[in-house]
């Protein structure tokens, strides 16, 4: 339970970070480049917004949970994607790529208003048995809160008790790292 919650959080946090990164760095009409390449299970992502000149190129961060640099242990590939927007004052929603997890597909949608993330919802979560339902009931609201909190803090890095490779896969730091690997 805790593992999937943290894992889902990393995915959402990546989407959020990718999203806010793009929101704040792209100039009008700017080109978008993939922040990291992910070939696993990504089915693309989309952005719909009200900004003129918005470019909706998908970004996918490969393997957010397994770690960057390909040095830590393998893991199920995940891909958090997000759409790009051309200015920081957009309104609309960004839907992340579908991440294939061992529990099933996960996809999140971020709602932006006035350039700020105002909501995070799960578009797709694993279902079909009691345990999955339990995860949805618990994890999704937690994710929403955490993603919003991470954004409002806009942190660059996390200081905490020593992280091992196992813990790293589920950490917010790994999501921050993944958002800037390229």
């Amino acid at each position, binding site marked *: 339970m805790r593992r999937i*919650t943290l894992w889902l959080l990393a995915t959402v946090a990546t989407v959020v970070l990718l999203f806010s990164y793009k929101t704040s760095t792209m100039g009008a009409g700017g080109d978008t480049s993939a922040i990291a390449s992910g070939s696993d299970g990504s089915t693309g992502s989309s952005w719909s917004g009200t900004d003129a000149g918005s470019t909706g190129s998908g970004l996918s961060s490969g393997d957010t949970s397994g770690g960057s640099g390909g040095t*830590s242990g393998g893991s199920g590939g995940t891909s958090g994607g997000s759409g790009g927007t051309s200015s920081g004052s957009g309104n609309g929603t960004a839907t992340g790529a579908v991440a294939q997890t061992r529990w099933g597909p996960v996809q999140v949608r971020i709602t932006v208003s006035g350039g700020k993330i105002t909501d995070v919802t799960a578009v797709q979560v694993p279902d079909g048995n009691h345990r999955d339902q339990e995860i949805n009931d618990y994890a999704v609201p937690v994710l929403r809160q955490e993603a919003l909190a991470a954004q409002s803090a806009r942190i660059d890095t996390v200081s905490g008790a020593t992280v091992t490779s196992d813990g790293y896969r589920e950490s917010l730091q790994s999501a921050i790292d993944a958002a800037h690997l390229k």
Partner: protein
Amino acid sequence: MNLTTELDRRAWVVQVMGLPVSVHLRGPEVHTDTVAERVERVFAELGEMDAVFSTYRPESVLGRLGGAVPDPATAAPVVREVVELCELARARTGGWFDARHLPLPGGGTGFDPSGLVKGWAVERAARHLADLPEHDLCLNAGGDVLLRTAPGRPAWLVGIEDPDRPERMLDVVERAGGAVATSGTARRGAHILDPHTGRPAEAVRSVTVVGPELLWADVYATAAAARGADALDWLATLDGYAALVVDAAGRVRATSNWPGTRAGTQTRAA
């Protein structure tokens, strides 16, 4: 849109010294080979230091000594430096940081400078990035952070993890340079020992120290976690360093010079 977000930023992450180490750089040349090669040197040097100091590697200098303190007269200069720094750390912490009698991976107790080597090695390796003007550095080694910013650049925002809920932040501090180090029991259990009793220190959940040098921020955080009850009073006496402490009951307190949003606590020493 502000200056920070217009700068190119790039991250590298490598598993070294048993830790995920991430290097983030902001600046105009982060996508050049020159900068990438510098970053590679940082990781390479951390790997070299691990090969010397790791107590998990039987073939390392420390591994071969099996817990004996290296003889300063015959030791390599880096080893001598670390032995001397461990002594200095013991003196500066009133004996609460003591590398001499720690449990060793292979069993038994002996000299294990790992608690100091991480900060020391990271600061040392980061010199490969020192002469990159116009570039800002945020290096995170398993939760301990070293920061630099070029003149006129915005500070980095460092989240302080809640030890009971690692996905949440207790506070956020804005730092242009120096270090933020956290020690505690959140991720590895009670692994910090009270050097006076040899028993796990459990009165403190987490200590975060902010200050100019990573080596000392890390050593002070570890020593404070070992001290337990009077950790905050002792931390308040350290010149140039500020701290945030979470005790076993979950109470969060900070020294009066703490740079985050948490209000400082008046301590007897302050």
